[in-house]
């Protein structure tokens, strides 16, 4: 088979797969090279599934709002697979006046970006989700937030792109990008050389290793995030949940199980490589957080815990850009722990950048060269 295509995408996470889909839909010849033997084996199959606008960085807010309005609503139909998208709102809960202050700040920032999000009292929160602990005193409420199944979304984009003729090669580790005639053109894996007019690097936290071969580097580090899932139980509530202190976040899935994530405070202290290890202290801490806000869930059984790496950028927002330094290259990485909700929009834009179109939204905040040195 010929190794020449219009676009090569490095990385078959949700960003790479979705970009492949939008490009294949335009009739382009696309090749996706994935280092792992498994499609979507990075953060994309390991995340909490949040499709949230509230709490987002002001620069990211327009992208995720665009996605919620235009892309997520039809995604299951478009991809021919139920991605289990629920748009039942996001409750971010608080128990103390300090928590409420934190929530108010987040709410004001998002509302000034045009998002429908507001503070509500315990009574209103209780009317939305009757299972709350009565220690909750208030919450922020964003009715258009939601969640989806990240494994299905990632595989749905893969399946749809593959059906449109995109070529996926797994077990294909990219080790170098080479220029030809001043443009990035050749993509070298451990056993093949591929060629394309445009190369999209969407390799998550491992993107730097590839970008460095053409002299580029995004200031980002790996950080370990962890999740757990419970046995299934009858439907209780379908809001996305979070707290002012980020003790935990999560939701009930279509299947009936609850998926929760939490933080330990030690996320950046990790060594990237291999299967991300679930640490012993994380899930118990998340359980304590959950029980404090949802005592009714205390007897629910945990069936599995897992972990994944996020690609945490210095300013916690991604790079989505065609860098001036290297013609023929598109970068989409550094999604900093919130790349799932934004993925349909980010990939739409990456596909536009790959064909030289003006993106549907302004992406100047996500430029590669925004990181200026201190002096």
């Amino acid at each position, binding site marked *: *088979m010929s190794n020449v295509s219009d676009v090569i995408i490095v990385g078959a996470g949700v960003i790479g797969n979705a970009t492949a889909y939008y490009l294949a839909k335009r009739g382009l010849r696309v090749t996706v090279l994935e280092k792992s*033997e*498994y*499609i*979507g*084996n990075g953060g994309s*199959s390991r995340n909490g599934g949040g499709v949230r606008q509230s709490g987002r960085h002001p620069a990211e807010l327009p992208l995720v709002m665009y996605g919620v309005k235009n892309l997520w609503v039809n995604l299951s139909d478009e991809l021919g697979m139920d991605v289990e998208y629920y748009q039942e709102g996001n409750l971010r809960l608080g128990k103390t006046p300090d928590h409420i202050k934190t929530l108010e700040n987040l709410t004001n920032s998002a509302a000034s970006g045009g998002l429908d999000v507001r503070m509500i009292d315990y009574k209103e929160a209780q009317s939305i989700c009757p299972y709350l602990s009565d220690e909750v005193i208030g919450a922020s409420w964003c009715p258009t937030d939601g969640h989806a199944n990240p*494994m*299905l979304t*990632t*595989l749905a984009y*893969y*399946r749809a792109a*593959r059906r449109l003729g995109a*070529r*996926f*090669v*797994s*077990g*294909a*580790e990219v080790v170098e990008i080479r220029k030809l005639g001043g443009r990035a053109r050749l993509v070298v*894996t451990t*056993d*093949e050389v591929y060629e394309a007019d445009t190369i999209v690097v969407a390799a998550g936290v491992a993107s730097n290793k590839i970008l460095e071969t053409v002299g580029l580097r995004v200031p980002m580090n790996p950080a370990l995030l962890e999740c757990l899932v*419970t*046995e*299934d139980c009858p439907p209780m509530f379908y809001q996305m949940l979070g707290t002012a202190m980020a003790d935990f976040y999560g939701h009930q899935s279509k*299947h009936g199980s609850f998926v929760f994530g939490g933080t330990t405070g030690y996320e950046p202290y990790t060594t990237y490589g291999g*299967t991300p290890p*679930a640490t*012993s*202290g994380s*899930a*118990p*801490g998340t*359980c*304590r957080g*959950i*029980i404090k806000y949802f005592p009714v*869930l*205390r*007897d*629910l*059984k*945990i*069936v*599995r*815990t*897992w972990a994944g790496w996020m690609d945490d950028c210095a300013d916690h927002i991604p790079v989505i850009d065609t860098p001036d330094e290297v013609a023929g290259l598109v970068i989409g990485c550094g999604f900093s722990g919130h790349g799932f909700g934004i993925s349909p929009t980010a990939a739409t834009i990456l596909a536009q950048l790959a064909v030289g179109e003006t993106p549907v939204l302004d992406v100047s905040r996500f430029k590669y060269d925004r990181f200026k040195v201190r002096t």
Partner: protein
Amino acid sequence: MSAVDRTRDIGEYVPAQDDDMIVCRCEEITKGEIRRAVHDGMYNVHEVRRLLRCGMGLCQGQTCARLVKSIVARELGVRSLEDATARAPMRPIEMSVFANDGGGE
């Protein structure tokens, strides 16, 4: 690790008599669903499991993991495949028990 081109032709999905057989009892996934997933591009147990949830229920695949693996391998025409990853806890455990590990402030 070797490269696997997902455009590799593995032939059409051909319905079989035992396609209705339940393979994963926790999540009620049939042999036919697993076989169809392979033909939809899920070329290993990880992807099949993420798509269908087989082996992700209460027993976490302790009953069906080997069977799922052999069905996927046969469909692909390969001799062996890697196992899916096992994760803690070993047995389902109540949140309140898990929470009680003495950690936290």
